[in-house]
């Protein structure tokens, strides 16, 4: 069963520290998405890639967040410096263009 994997699953860090989240999309999927989920805002799209090229990162605070796809098997989301308001569950999802998105299990981030 092909799945999206994410690491770490849980991360607790202190304000000001750098956080890196990793995602391995399903082989053969050409689009990768990063979402953030909070109780208040729901599911928000932060960034997405097609064929490893960034297509839209308008949902991401540019001063502290960055997203990359160094190769087809790895997507990263970095927060530097982290702030308590960044506490959320971060999901990575992958898919073939226009079709269903398969979500990873998420990274639960807590910034103290």
């Amino acid at each position: 069963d092909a799945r999206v994997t994410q690491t770490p699953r849980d991360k607790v860090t202190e304000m000001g520290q750098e956080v890196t989240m990793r995602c391995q999309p399903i082989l053969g999927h050409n689009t990768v998405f990063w979402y953030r989920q909070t109780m208040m805002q729901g599911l928000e799209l932060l960034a997405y890639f097609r064929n490893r090229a960034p297509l839209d990162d308008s949902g991401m605070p540019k001063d502290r967040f960055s997203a990359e796809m160094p190769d087809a098997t790895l997507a990263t989301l970095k927060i530097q410096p982290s702030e308590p308001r960044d506490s959320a569950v971060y999901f990575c999802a992958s898919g073939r263009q226009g079709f269903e998105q398969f979500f990873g299990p998420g990274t639960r981030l807590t910034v103290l």
Partner: protein
Amino acid sequence: QQPVQSPQAVILREGEDAVINCSSSKALYSVHWYRQKHGEAPVFLMILLKGGEQKGHDKISASFNEKKQQSSLYLTASQLSYSGTYFCGTVSGGGGSNYKLTFGKGTLLTVNP
């Protein structure tokens, strides 16, 4: 702009039916429906493309009225396993190379025995 879902929450007894609505102020290319159980990732249910086609599998179906920019998800003869939060996600405009999904805030469905 985020689509609006209604109701925000619904409680059913096993075997009852429910309808969840999703509406947008923008012209829509497609509507996607996902279900998320507590502590888990969202799971895809179905996509509806422009054209008003009704889709379904098992006892869950959906419709898409592109003129009204609305979609509805129908759950019939609900089962305990249907409990969770249902999200609609919309792709607006002409579609094409735009795969950007904007999700509604979700509808919490609870099915009791």
